[in-house]
C-alpha cells in the first residue's frame, strides 16, 4: 500500500475517532507532545493506559463481587480510571466513569454493575480503535501528524 493511501487512511480514521467521540481534544495534546526526542510518546502513554485500565477493571469486578461492597474502594478505582481516560482523551470512557461515580455515591449496586459493563464495553471499543490506528501508523512508517 503506498504512503499516500496510508496517509489518507490514517487521517480519515483519526477523524472518525474524534467524530464519534471516542477521542477528544486531549488526544491531540498528546500527539503534539510527541517529538524527535520521544518519537514513541503517544504509543507509550496509550500502552500505559491499556495496562492500567485493565488492572482497574479487574479490581472493579472483584470489588463489586464482594458480599459487602466497599463503595469507597470502588469509587477510588473509578476515580483513577476517570483520571487516566480524561488525560489521554478517551472521552466515552471518561463519561461512563462520571455516571459510575454517581452510583457509587448513592451506593447503588445495580447501577454500579451496569456501569461496569458499560465502561468495559467503551474501553474495549477505544482500545480496538487505537490499536487499529497504531497499526496503520506502523504500516506506513512515521507519518507526520
Amino acid at each position, binding site marked *: 500500500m503506498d504512503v499516500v493511501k496510508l496517509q489518507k487512511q490514517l487521517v480519515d480514521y483519526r477523524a472518525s475517532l474524534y467524530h464519534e467521540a471516542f477521542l477528544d481534544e*486531549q488526544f491531540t495534546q498528546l500527539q503534539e507532545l510527541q517529538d524527535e526526542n520521544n518519537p514513541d510518546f503517544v504509543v507509550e502513554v496509550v500502552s500505559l493506559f491499556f495496562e492500567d485500565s485493565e488492572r482497574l477493571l479487574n479490581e472493579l469486578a472483584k470489588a463489586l463481587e464482594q458480599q459487602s461492597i466497599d463503595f469507597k474502594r470502588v469509587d477510588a478505582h473509578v476515580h*483513577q480510571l476517570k*483520571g*487516566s481516560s480524561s488525560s489521554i*482523551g478517551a472521552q466515552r470512557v471518561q463519561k461512563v466513569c462520571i455516571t459510575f461515580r454517581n452510583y457509587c455515591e448513592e451506593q447503588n449496586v445495580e447501577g454500579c454493575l451496569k456501569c461496569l459493563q458499560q465502561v468495559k464495553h467503551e474501553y474495549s471499543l477505544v482500545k480496538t480503535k487505537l490499536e487499529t490506528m497504531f497499526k496503520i501508523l506502523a504500516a506506513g512508517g512515521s507519518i507526520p501528524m
Partner: protein
Amino acid sequence: MAGGGCSKDTAVDFGDQPHVLAVDDNLIDRKLVEKLLKNSSCKVTTAENGLRALEYLGLGNDQRSAMEGTVSKVNLIITDYCMPGMTGYELLKKIKESSVLKEVPVVIMSSENSPTRISQCLEEGAQMFMLKPLKQSDVKQLKCHLMKCRS
C-alpha cells in the same frame, strides 16, 4: 523574561532549567506532566504520593533535622489534589510549615473545578491552581507566571 527591580531570595532561583517535583498517584498523569514540563525545559523528578514527595524533599519522618540551613533541591512543586493517604492540600501545608521549603512555589492540580477547593489551596499559600487534564499551554502559562513572581 528578564524582570527589572530587585530579585527575591535566590534560594529558589528559577533559572533557565528549573527543577520541578511532580506528585501524582496516577501513572498516566505522572508521565504526562513529566513530558509537559520537560517540553518547557524543566528538569523533572516525580513522586507517586505525598510521603514519597516529603522524603525526597528531606522532610520525611526520619529526617527531622537533616535539612537545617540547606537550600531546597527543587524550584517548584506541582501536585495533584486528590491522592490517597496524604492529599495535595495536606502536602502543601507540610511544605509551608518548613523553614527551608516554604518559599518554594507549590501548584495544585485537580480534575474538579471547585471554588471552595481552589480558595482553600490559595489561602494556604498555593501559587496556582490548575485544572486537569493539563495542556502544553497551561504549563507555558505556569512558567511565565512563576518567572514574573521571581522579581
